[in-house]
């Protein structure tokens, strides 16, 4: 059983993702603000983090959280899960995964099909660390 930390300001969405994680036999906890993330990770290190990008505090807070997490836990798998468009305008996708700019392991766009989400979570927990898996 793995421990997953979900960082998302949308409680309904985060709860639905947590439900999927739990149904997969994992433990899932939710953090609703970017600021809480690092202390929670320091308190108890998760096996993977599922991270949103846009928060009411800062539209790009997810990027900074990902960079901070990478600095403190270089091996921690991070799945970026966001309603930000993968395409234009100002979109980003797998192509933009970058050790400095977007240091995440994988990237999925909301709305997400739960079959896809389950597959990505499973891959995140078993895949080679820190590598993009398109």
């Amino acid at each position, binding site marked *: 059983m793995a421990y997953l930390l979900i960082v998302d300001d949308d409680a309904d969405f985060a709860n639905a993702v947590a439900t999927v994680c739990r149904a997969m036999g994992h433990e899932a906890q939710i953090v609703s603000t970017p600021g809480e993330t690092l202390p929670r990770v320091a308190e108890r290190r998760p096996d993977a983090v599922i991270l949103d990008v846009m928060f009411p505090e800062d539209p790009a807070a997810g990027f900074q959280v990902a960079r901070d997490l990478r600095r403190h836990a270089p091996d921690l798998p991070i799945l970026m899960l966001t309603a930000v468009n993968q395409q*234009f305008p100002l979109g980003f996708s797998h192509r933009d995964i970058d050790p400095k700019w977007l240091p995440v392991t994988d990237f999925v766009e909301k709305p997400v099909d739960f079959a896809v989400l389950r597959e990505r979570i499973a891959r995140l927990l078993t895949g080679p660390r820190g590598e993009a898996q398109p």
Partner: protein
Amino acid sequence: MNGAADSAAPPARYRLAPVPEAPAGAPPPDAASEAAWIEPVLRANAVWFCQLRWLVVGVLLVVAASGLVPALPAAVGLRIQPLWPAVTAGVLAALNLEFMRRSRAAGGPGARGSIRAVLWAQIASDLVILTAVIYWVGPDWPAASFMYLFHIILACLVFSPGQSLAVLGLAAGLYGLSLWSVSRGWLPASTIRLEGTGSLGLPTPGQFWAGLVPMLLVWGVIWYLVSRLAATLRRRELELAETNRRLAASSEERAQHMLQTTHQLKAPFAAIHAMTQVLLGGYAGELPPPAREVAGKIADRCLALSRQIQEMLQLANLRSRAQTAPPLRPLDLAGVVREVLGRLEPAARQRRIRLDAALQPAPVQAAPDHLTMLVDNLVVNAVTYSHDGGVVEVTCAPEPGPAGGARLTVRDHGIGIAAEKLPRIFDDYYRTEEAVAHNRASTGLGLAIVRQVARATGATLEVESAPGRGTTFTVIFPGAHPVTAPAPNTPSAAQPQSHHGLPADR
């Protein structure tokens, strides 16, 4: 009540300043923004002056060389001592090397402002050297006073009117001093004329002033005209730079706003969709079949609405950006297609639609996001209007011939489009009756986006279709460089019953 607290904390105040109007009649931009704009211009000018100065060094060396063969200057009534121009050329060259170094370094961090000092040093040393050369050539040389005009005019172009007037003053002072020194006998008179100084006669003080004052008047008139003209041009240029800055800022702001809007509109649907999947996946207990059907419809409508929002925003953004299109970059079309197919494959698989790809490396010039959007919309369109269990074939290949370019085809074997409806399929929200019957949820914006992107990329769109047999979209990207590649291996089309070519700038 709460008097102590009220007096301790200043009252909160919020002021919404009106957006300043654009340049027409507006006060000139502040000094800081002017400095930021003018510094690179000054640096470019300082470097340019250095380049021009090498010409002068060259001319002086030629004059010195001609002095080595006295017969040559003597033929035009001159007598040249080679030492003078050679030494002057050497001094000028040494100074110029130093000026070049300083002009280039002046743009570096922490060196801001020193570019003016470099320019002043260049002008001052030029004027001193010019005065020395004019003294050597002789006071009776008719072009002497005009030589200073180059520096006065250049100063008017790069400096403020006050500063260029100071340059004029410096030139007048140096020229006057040299003439006065000769007229008072402080310096021996010099000339390059063969007749020698004896025939010249030294100017009296009265002749000195009679020569200097009209010259100063001419310089003054030229300074006034050029500095006024330069100031007007500089103000216009500054206003233009400010307008450009504002345009860029507003474009950036709009893109940020678009991103926020996309997120704000899509996020609730993502949450609703996630919750329907909690229901449909049985995570909240088994649902009776009628309830499953309702939850499934909610999920479908959520996805459709989410995509519609995305497409409306994309199209609005594409159109508003038409004047400031993002820069085109060399990209491999095959890589983009592969990525899009990878992303869309799960959705196609749900309808048992196979995505067949035959992709050759095909270099194109396009904006990466735009190209992804174009390919994505064409493949989504093909999948949407295919029958369940069908096949969508995607090919890309470089165009043969020296012009280069690339060709993308997306072929489905779905419902097809009647010939008379083909010219309208790229219109906003246009959907044929057959399309609506086949898929009610589609937005009718996907092909409008395709057309907009093709236009921005300079690509040509072609569509071939036969009702009931399917549709083939072809995008022909223009070539930037000649490509030497094998001929494309495009599958031959079954006799199309209709064909519609759509130039990108329709």
